[in-house]
């Protein structure tokens, strides 16, 4: 991994985050959407004990759905005026493109997760405990990296042309299953839902990390081919 490549990736990530800061699409649209999803879950499930027990899962479901639209936004800025194509055509390293966009996506998702966790506490009565905090944070980070990698891979593919955007959920959801399963179990252990001990969460963090690394490396290698039209 050359320094030049990392520098290019960082520059690309900074560009993505700058665009978000200017346009505020995630803050103004995606965040309210995720909050809404969490409220709507309560309508569907009722407000009894189910909600508190299901809180970790519901939160990650909201994250997953929000990831889909965040990814679409991430690539919409690239296809609006053909910027990604321009970068590809100019011979900019696709690995750097992948890493940069995935990194920006990860930052955005972490911010989202932080807010949603707060909402879970408020809306679902989830109660974080001191001994679970480290587990909570590591779960969130490892899950986010996996989702960011997945999103960038399939987002790049779906951005290629008309009639492809609908492919995104179909491609991402089956392979996001390990993240959903692992992240939910990790948060359950951190919160102590169903009397789960904190120690039970760590194998899941392991799974999430392996997932993130495996998908991240494969994605970096595959990205160049996937963004060709």
């Amino acid at each position: 991994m050359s320094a030049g490549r990392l520098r290019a990736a960082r520059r690309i990530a900074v560009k993505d985050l700058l665009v978000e800061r200017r346009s505020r699409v995630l803050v103004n649209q995606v965040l309210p959407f995720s909050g809404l999803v969490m409220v709507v879950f309560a309508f569907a499930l009722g407000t009894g004990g189910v909600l508190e027990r299901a809180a970790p899962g519901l939160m990650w479901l909201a994250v997953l759905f929000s990831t889909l639209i965040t990814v679409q936004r991430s690539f919409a800025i690239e296809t609006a005026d053909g910027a990604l194509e321009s970068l590809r055509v100019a011979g900019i390293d696709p690995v750097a493109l992948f890493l940069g966009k995935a990194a920006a996506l990860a930052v955005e998702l972490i911010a989202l997760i932080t807010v949603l966790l707060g909402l879970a506490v408020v809306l679902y009565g989830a109660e974080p405990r001191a001994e679970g905090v480290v587990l909570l944070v590591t779960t969130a980070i490892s899950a986010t990296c996996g989702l960011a990698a997945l999103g960038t891979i399939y987002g790049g593919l779906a951005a290629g042309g008309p009639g492809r955007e609908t492919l995104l959920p179909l491609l991402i959801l089956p392979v996001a299953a390990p993240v959903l399963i692992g992240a939910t179990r990790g948060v359950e252990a951190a919160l102590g839902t169903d009397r789960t001990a904190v120690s039970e969460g760590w194998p899941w963090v392991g799974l999430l990390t392996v997932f993130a690394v495996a998908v991240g490396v494969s994605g970096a290698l595959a990205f160049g081919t996937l963004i060709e039209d």
Partner: protein
Amino acid sequence: MTPTTSPQPTARRATGTRATRVLGIVTLVMLGWLLLFGLVLSPADIDQGDAVRIMYVHVPTVWLAYLAFIVTAVCSGLYLFGRRHSLGFDRVAGASAEIGVVFMALTLISGSLWGRITWGVYWQWDARLTTTALLFVTYIGYLAVRGLEGTRERRARRSAVIGLLAVVEIPLVHWSVRLWRSLHQEATILDTDLDVDIDGLMLFTLFSGVVAFTLLFVWLLLHRTRTIALDDLLASRGLDRAIAERRSEVTSSGSIGGGS
């Protein structure tokens, strides 16, 4: 030096050859054999009764669904990393995925029926069934990607990459589902690893089933790969004609660029 294009498959009027006809007959015989043993000659289970006979379809289709997946993955790799990037591998990968999806659907349906008849539930959240369901959807996604626009080579590269990504992702999916299901200590009612005491004649019938379906898979794969090859041949035959038509635009458009 002109670049080499993939060697064109030789033209045939149909996709059958003597080899596949022989294979086809053997397959039919084996399937008949299976029907005979499965429905008539093998004994009913002590607990499940005749419902156990669904197993003779369900188990082979599971095996074949995963075999088809492996074939797709291997061919994707051979296409992408082979020196000649032979489109033949891409064709086999695509054909195998199509057949695999069908077998997976059969697995899910037969497993579902079996569970319903025997234990009253259509679905069990056990590791194998859940992973197969996810694999099924992943493959539908793969086929959707194969259907995207583009030149043959680009389609092949893109699909091969997606196919190989699945190779990386599916074990992780399987691992996570296994880990998840192992948390639940309650006894699984339907364990697709055969909650049935099989031996003797039943085992033999099961084995025949696996053989019969494997032959069926190979036969289908050969034919489907060949029809895909014929499609490609048709497209490239049309190419020379299209080139000629294209050049005729020159003469038909009269004097262009002269002094308009």
